[in-house]
């Protein structure tokens, strides 16, 4: 049974002339990783906030169509109550800081404290979340003194500590070095094996394709494609970034310098093999 279900859903922000998002039809099941990719201003962040229950209190908008979590409409939910199940990590790492914690450990513990969990459990969860995000050495630091990359790791830890059913990451790796981002993403993918659903909102194809089984491509707020990374490859790279090896593959395919039946590479490591498949058949 789907955790999130959208059918012909659309959203118009207050004061906007056109629909910000339209034609959304997808579902997310437990344990799945979905990536939503699109260029700047195509509505990724709006969709992330919608899934986190921000409409209409934290984001004034009118919605239509079906957009539900466990068959309850997303719009009108109390964000605070929904926070136990859905966690959003925003693009700006400082936006998620509460402003009432003197150190990182207290910042991360704030959420479980609000849930009224026993002290011992809170401490265990906080230690585990910081460990997973490679942020254990930051626990005594003041949140205001964190660099962008450090703040991102803390923000992800603060979301994980709530043990959500659905984790939404809105360009949450943008300030991390590629190696660190890859490691963190691998650990989060491991968590999905325990049933957590993961949605990545990205402008980087490599990162999205690495972890996601399906990619939803947004153009101008409209859902254009919802398919495997290989099927979305050609069109997605017109809008989002990718390493040079992938871009070379896209150009080769566009120019007819490819072989039918050979899938495009999804990351740099597999690029040579695919090109060789094209060469040798």
């Amino acid at each position, binding site marked *: 049974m789907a955790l999130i279900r959208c059918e012909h859903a659309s959203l118009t922000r207050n004061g906007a002339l056109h629909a910000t998002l339209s034609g959304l039809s997808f579902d997310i099941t437990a344990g799945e990783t979905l990536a939503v990719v699109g260029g700047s201003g195509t509505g990724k962040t709006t969709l992330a906030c919608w899934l986190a229950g*921000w409409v209409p209190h934290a984001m004034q908008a009118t919605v239509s169509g079906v957009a539900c979590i466990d068959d309850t409409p997303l719009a009108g939910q109390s964000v605070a109550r929904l*926070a136990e199940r859905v966690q959003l990590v925003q693009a700006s790492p400082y936006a998620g800081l509460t402003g009432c914690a003197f150190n990182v450990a207290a910042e991360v513990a704030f959420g479980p404290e609000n849930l*009224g969990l026993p002290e011992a459990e809170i401490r265990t969860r906080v230690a585990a979340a910081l460990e997973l995000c490679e942020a254990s050495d930051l626990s005594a630091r003041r949140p205001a003194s964190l660099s962008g990359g450090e703040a991102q790791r803390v923000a992800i830890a603060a979301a994980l500590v709530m043990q959500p059913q659905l984790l939404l990451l809105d360009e949450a790796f943008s300030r991390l070095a590629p190696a660190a981002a890859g490691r963190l993403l691998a650990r989060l993918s491991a968590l999905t094996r325990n049933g957590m659903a993961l949605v990545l909102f990205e402008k980087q194809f490599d990162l999205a394709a690495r972890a996601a089984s399906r990619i939803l491509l947004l153009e101008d707020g409209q859902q254009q494609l919802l398919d495997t990374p290989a099927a979305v490859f050609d069109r997605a790279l017109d809008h989002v970034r990718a390493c040079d090896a992938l871009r070379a593959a896209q150009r080769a395919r566009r120019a007819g310098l490819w072989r039918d039946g050979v899938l495009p590479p999804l990351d740099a490591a597999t690029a040579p093999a695919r090109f060789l498949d094209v060469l040798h058949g």
Partner: protein
Amino acid sequence: MHPFTGLALMLPASLLALRLAAPDRLLVLLALPLFLLLSRPQGWKRFRQWCAVLLPLALGMLLVHGRWLDGWVSGTQEMATENRVEALLPVVRLWLRVAIVLACALLWLSTTTPERLMRALFASRLPAGAAYLLASPLLLIEQLKARLAAVSQAQAARGVDVHWSWFKRWRSLLALTVPLVVWTLSDVGERAAALDSRAFRSRARRTTLDAPVAARWERASMAFAALSAVLIAGSFIWP
């Protein structure tokens, strides 16, 4: 020491300061917190803070209420000394009362840290929202300082000179304060959303890690303080 203990004891002390009228008694009441303050670690620093407020206040009050300022400005005849002393009495009383309250407040602050106070607020019976409102200013100064530094650097990189004369600087001050204000204001909505995403106020009871615990003597002191406060307040009504 639990942060609320000192705060509770401040209440009867302040009420007593209001109740007493004789300057010599007020002086005795002032001596006690000042002595305790000086005996605390970093006591001299806080004493200097106390002086920094009270001494200019004394000077100002003397000038105004002692009618010296009046005399200089309007050029009227000098007052007789006894009249002057009489005029000064209520002023001295007022100054002593302010001095006592400030000394007690500084003494209380020396017994706790902002972090412990924040935890005590969240662990108390106050509604979580009210606790947040009272607690978040404790961190605000630090955040504003960090932001001001970031904004200053950004503007200096574009040519805003912090060494300019005040005349030239007024325009650039806008360049510094506008981003700071916009940033802080846009922050309000963001903070509300951030708190909600951490399930703030979603449950009736919240846990507070490392909540300060009031020892038995502290609970007794707080009860004693409350009782004293009631008695002293009562003495206003029944002299």
